[in-house]
């Protein structure tokens, strides 16, 4: 086994693709450097982190431009660079990275949003004494995520994936002195681990099947037709092909990272981390990673699916996504912690993305991912700025009337909220969600997801309205007096707000630029895009739904300022439902009652076995031996000792005799030495002459 790291660029790879690795490398190296800094070098640390990420952003833009120009000139760009990592015999494990529209778009998004969040956190963490450590972790986080994005090999992707998990653990538990934070960090780590186990299984299986982990390797990659055909051919039981099974396993990993239904519990608790971290996790990096993974392996996902139809994997993805969307939205309705509400909304939006992937393919899901990244980052940072302004107050009931107190925050937050709830025509959220709904509507196998998603949209509009009216309208119910946040925090908000609106342009049915960019079909702008059958009605419906949601929310919560201790409107209306929702549908309790209880029970059983069964045996054996020992003792005392003691006395006497030789006198020893020499010499001579 020879481990050579020979670097084999392929002919097509352009210079920008060659140096693509610099994008994640920069922040990673910088985090290493920052780790070496002393705690006091705050400015230096933040400068290094931000600078490195800005550098990555420039590179990402360059890469994007490269891809864009290639796309403009009509041929799809997909350049890969391969590094042979391990070579065993003739089977190699390759790492590598790929530059194609998907990764290019993702790179730009991550670096840009990440950069804004970095700048923002300079202001937000200004008073924390572990500032440097924070930036160390932060840039490592960003670097890992960028690694996930550019990875062309499932293995490299998995490495960075785990790195993301680790850094998320570190960052969520950043305020480790808070027990809740530590617990949340542990929870996040373990929960995602569950998904990752399946993911790893999928990877191994894939390697066993195809012998490579590269996605694209001019025809030899695992995401390319040749391999896929082989995978489809291989059966895996339960009527699944190997492709389907592996796809599901990988999806489990993705579900873990991006908080899909069974494994979403860690995401809301992750709010314990500092707000910029929440923003980063929820908007740009971590949860996006799951969706991105699915998008990345989409060829595998849809392998064997009939044109426009679906296969097992996609169906599962769709249903999980849809149900997550509704489920989380329901919970979000009844939360009072400003960040928790956003967290659940993130979960539900991730459900939308997954559903979009399952229903409409990469373009739909990714488009929502991008737009969501922007406005969710916006919302989180807005929330952060609110919390910052209200002196670390997080309960929405203790706020209110902030719209005069912090106008900038309010304006940007409102934009983000409207975008999230899909306010028609002007906001990116509307178009991306609309695309998902459309594809759900046109889905061949059942309308279930469609209705669920529509309901989800309603709820989204509702709880966002609730939150905003709680926070920004009514009378100020907090203590102390709130203040606007510093410029370093508001400027990023403004930027994000701009993009939250502008990005919509890229995805209108009239000019589906984004879709065509990802799916390599050049797109022209024609109004005819709207003439698709049912499209207008669809848009109308979603608009209607959104307005209903908004109106309902305003009706119930608008402009009234309840006492903090006063019960919520819904609570008064329908207490049981409220309590169920307020307690997050008892999922944590459910897990506590089932999984954890099961383990506890097992532990108790094992304990009992230990005590009773094994312990009993041991006790029996011990008793036997002790009995035997007693017998021995009896014999000893009575007739061994006599003789033995005699022997001991003899021995000690002899010892004394010998000890006399060691008189502690140098010359005695010297004498013995000399004697020995004499004898030795005599013997030698005698033997030599004889």
């Amino acid at each position: 086994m020879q481990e050579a790291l020979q670097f084999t660029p392929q002919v097509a790879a352009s210079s920008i693709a060659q140096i693509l690795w610099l994008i994640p490398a920069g922040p990673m190296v910088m985090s290493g450097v920052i780790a070496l800094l002393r705690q006091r070098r705050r400015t230096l640390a933040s400068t290094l982190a931000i600078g490195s990420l800005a550098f990555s952003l420039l590179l990402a833009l360059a890469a994007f431009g490269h891809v864009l120009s290639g796309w403009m000139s009509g041929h799809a760009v997909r350049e890969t660079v391969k590094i042979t990592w391990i070579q065993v015999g003739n089977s190699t494990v390759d790492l590598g990275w790929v530059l194609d529209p998907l990764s290019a778009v993702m790179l730009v998004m991550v670096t840009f949003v990440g950069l804004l969040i970095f700048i923002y956190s300079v202001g937000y963490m200004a008073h924390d004494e572990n500032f440097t450590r924070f930036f160390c972790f932060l840039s490592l986080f960003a670097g890992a995520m960028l690694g996930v994005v550019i990875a062309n090999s499932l293995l490299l992707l998995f490495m960075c994936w785990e790195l993301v998990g680790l850094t998320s653990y570190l960052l969520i538990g950043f305020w480790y002195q808070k027990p809740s934070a530590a617990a949340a960090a542990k929870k996040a780590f373990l929960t995602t681990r569950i998904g990752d186990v399946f993911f790893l299984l999928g990877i191994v299986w894939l390697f066993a099947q195809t012998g490579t982990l590269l996605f694209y390797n001019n025809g030899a990659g695992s995401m390319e037709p040749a391999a896929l055909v082989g995978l489809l051919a291989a059966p895996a039981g339960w009527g699944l092909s190997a492709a389907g099974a592996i796809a599901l396993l990988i999806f489990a990993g993705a579900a873990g990272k991006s908080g899909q239904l069974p494994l979403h519990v860690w995401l809301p608790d992750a709010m314990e981390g500092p707000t910029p971290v929440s923003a980063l996790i929820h908007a740009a990096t971590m949860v996006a990673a799951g969706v991105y993974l699915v998008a990345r392996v989409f060829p595998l996902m849809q392998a064997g699916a009939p044109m426009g139809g679906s296969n097992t994997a996609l169906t599962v993805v769709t249903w999980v996504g849809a149900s997550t969307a509704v489920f989380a939205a329901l919970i979000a309705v009844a939360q009072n912690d400003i960040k928790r509400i956003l967290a659940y909304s993130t979960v539900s939006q991730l459900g939308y993305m997954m559903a979009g992937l399952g229903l409409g393919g990469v373009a739909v899901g990714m488009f929502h991912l991008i737009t969501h990244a922007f406005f969710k980052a916006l919302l989180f940072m807005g929330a952060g700025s609110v919390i910052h302004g209200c002196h670390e107050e997080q309960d929405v009931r203790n706020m209110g009337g902030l719209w005069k107190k912090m106008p900038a925050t309010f304006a940007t937050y409102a934009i983000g909220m409207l975008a999230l709830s899909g306010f028609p025509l002007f906001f990116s959220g509307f178009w991306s969600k609309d695309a998902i709904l459309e594809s759900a509507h046109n889905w061949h196998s059942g309308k279930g997801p469609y209705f669920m998603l529509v309901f989800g949209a309603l709820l989204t509009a509702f709880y966002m309205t609730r939150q905003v009216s709680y926070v920004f309208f009514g009378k100020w119910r907090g203590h102390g007096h709130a203040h606007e946040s510093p410029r370093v925090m508001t400027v990023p908000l403004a930027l994000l707000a701009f993009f939250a609106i502008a990005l919509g342009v890229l995805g209108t049915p009239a000019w589906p630029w984004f879709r065509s960019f990802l799916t390599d079909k050049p797109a022209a702008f024609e109004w005819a895009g709207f003439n698709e059958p049912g499209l207008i009605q669809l848009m109308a419906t979603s608009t209607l739904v959104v307005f209903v949601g908004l109106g309902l929310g305003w009706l119930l919560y608008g402009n009234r300022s309840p006492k903090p201790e006063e019960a919520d409107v819904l609570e008064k209306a329908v207490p049981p439902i409220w309590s169920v929702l307020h307690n997050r549908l008892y999922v944590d309790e459910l897990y506590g009652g089932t999984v954890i209880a099961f383990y506890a029970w097992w532990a108790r059983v094992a304990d009992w076995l230990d005590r009773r069964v094994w312990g009993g045996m041991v006790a029996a054996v011990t008793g036997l031996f002790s009995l035997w020992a007693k017998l021995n003792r009896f014999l000893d005392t009575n007739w061994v000792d006599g003789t033995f003691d005699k022997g001991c006395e003899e021995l000690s006497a002899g010892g004394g005799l010998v000890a006399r030789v060691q008189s502690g006198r140098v010359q005695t020893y010297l004498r013995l030495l000399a004697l020995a020499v004499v004898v030795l010499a005599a013997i030698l001579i005698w033997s030599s002459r004889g």
Partner: protein
Amino acid sequence: MTPLAGYLLVAALVFSIGLAGALTRRNAILVLIGIELMLNAANLNLIAFWRYGPHPEALTGMMFAVFSIAVAAAEAAVGLGLVISIYRHAHTTDLDEMNRMKG
């Protein structure tokens, strides 16, 4: 009697004299001196063998002697230092009174 034998006999004599001194004197310093004498006798042997040996041009014996002289110097320095420090503790250099290491 060949010359070499003469040198060897002298060396042997000096060696045993040194040994006798080391074994019989009570003063630690004189014991050290005796040891030095023994070392010198050994050096004489080396030189004599080098001189009368088959390959004098190989310098081996002489080199050995030179190195052993250097080592002897070090030994003397350390040994005398030890004697002095012992004297500081026990206020004597009489070996008969120095039997702290008695077993």
